[in-house]
């Protein structure tokens, strides 16, 4: 419906410059990547997703011909400012801890009459899930720079955190990987990619606070659900079901660990 154009020329030039600078300065390649990120940060193409998301938020749609403007994302109906910094949280109406994506899907179902099942069974970047992603970009952008402050005061929130922690350390599959295999020690890298230590505040704030993000390599906007899906793929696990409890539990673990840090999303990644 709405096309998201990336500034491909800028990215191509930047990639060329990256190659050139890396070749010159092999001593500190990660520092060069940081420079490259800073260079393109002014033109983060997730702006385009945010604009599309704002339109979708306000537009009457679906079998019930309603907008999402009455959706309660956690701070009351229609309140967007700062809400991403307090998610995931427990919602009484669904009796569930929800992350932003599951909450947007809940609202699309309850307010607009869309089928949550269809969105769950769909694919990233396609169909109604693509609309969810745009709404996510819009909501997240309205928490940029705010302090992450996720609650564990409700028993179900506390429980979700504990389940998420257990999942974070759960080793399985043909490579024996868990999230902790790569994200439980400081100063580690896969190839040249820095790995945040998500078990402590600083690393968790860096990791949780940077997503969702626009990914230059794939030319698409990745929500946290998309990011987790690809983590599990590389972990050689079976596929996590979209907005399933495990994905929300692991998000809860990271978000609570990140408390006190700054929400920097929507970010920009390689």
């Amino acid at each position, binding site marked *: 419906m709405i096309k998201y154009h990336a500034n491909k020329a800028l990215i191509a030039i930047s990639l060329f410059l990256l190659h050139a600078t890396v070749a010159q300065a092999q001593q500190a390649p990660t520092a060069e990547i940081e420079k490259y990120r800073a260079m393109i940060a002014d033109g983060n193409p997730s702006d385009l997703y945010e604009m599309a998301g704002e339109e979708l938020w306000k537009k009457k749609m679906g079998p019930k011909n309603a907008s999402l403007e009455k959706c309660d994302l956690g701070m009351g109906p229609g309140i967007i400012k700062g809400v991403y910094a307090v998610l995931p949280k427990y919602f009484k109406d669904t009796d569930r801890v929800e992350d932003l994506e599951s909450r947007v899907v809940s609202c699309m179902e309850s307010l607009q009459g869309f089928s949550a099942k269809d969105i769950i069974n769909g694919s990233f970047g396609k169909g109604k899930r693509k609309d969810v992603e745009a709404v996510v970009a819009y909501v997240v952008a309205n928490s940029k720079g705010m302090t992450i402050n996720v609650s564990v005061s409700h028993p179900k929130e506390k429980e979700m955190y504990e389940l998420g922690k257990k999942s974070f350390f759960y080793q399985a599959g043909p490579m*024996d990987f868990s999230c902790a295999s*790569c994200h439980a020690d400081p100063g580690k890298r896969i190839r040249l990619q820095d790995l945040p230590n998500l078990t402590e505040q600083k690393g968790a704030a860096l990791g949780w606070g940077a997503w969702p993000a626009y990914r230059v390599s794939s030319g698409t906007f990745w929500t946290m659900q998309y990011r987790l899906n690809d983590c599990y793929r590389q972990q050689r696990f079976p*596929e996590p079901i979209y907005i399933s409890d495990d994905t929300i539990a692991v998000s809860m673990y990271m978000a609570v660990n990140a408390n006190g840090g700054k929400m920097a999303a929507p970010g920009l990644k390689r």
Partner: protein
Amino acid sequence: MKKNYLIVFLILPLFVGCSITDQKFDKMMKNSFQSKGIASVDRLNQDDAQKYCSDPATLAGKGDPNRAEVIQKANMATIKQPASGKYMGDWKSGERVAQSGRGATWTDKPEAANGGGCYNCHQINKSEVSYGNLGPSLWNYGKLRGYGQEVVTYTWNRINNSKAYNACSNMPRYGHFNLLTEKQMQDVMALLLDPNSPVNQ
């Protein structure tokens, strides 16, 4: 009243050795994943080593050392030495195996060759600057350790099943889970232990 006691007696044993959180966790995992491509849900079933190493206390060095020893012995017993007695292949092919990080994900085809992904975690040939640091540097591997049979067998075993030496080693068990073929492992061996390999210059 009597009936209530009976119910408690019937339910109680279910919780022994398995907390309510554990039960909820198992249910969550079961309901949160689906098979896709070659990555089916049975991958979530853990063996002894995976169970032991999923406990944060174990990773913090507070695991039961006896259990670690049992796991290491069991893993050691699964290692097959090369049928031909040949440990060393071609280092050039070994470099390609070390470079490729492909394989075993739900987007990989079952018939496609896996990579070893060695550079993901190790420095190997110094001319490759894009290497990870989850594992130790393997630069000058043979030059530093020598080329004797003891080193050769240890290296073969370590590639096949790293958990034979360290129950919670982060390195995938390439032979144990058939991630690499015998030939691929011989080639990686040569990359590390052929005196002519660039790694040993």
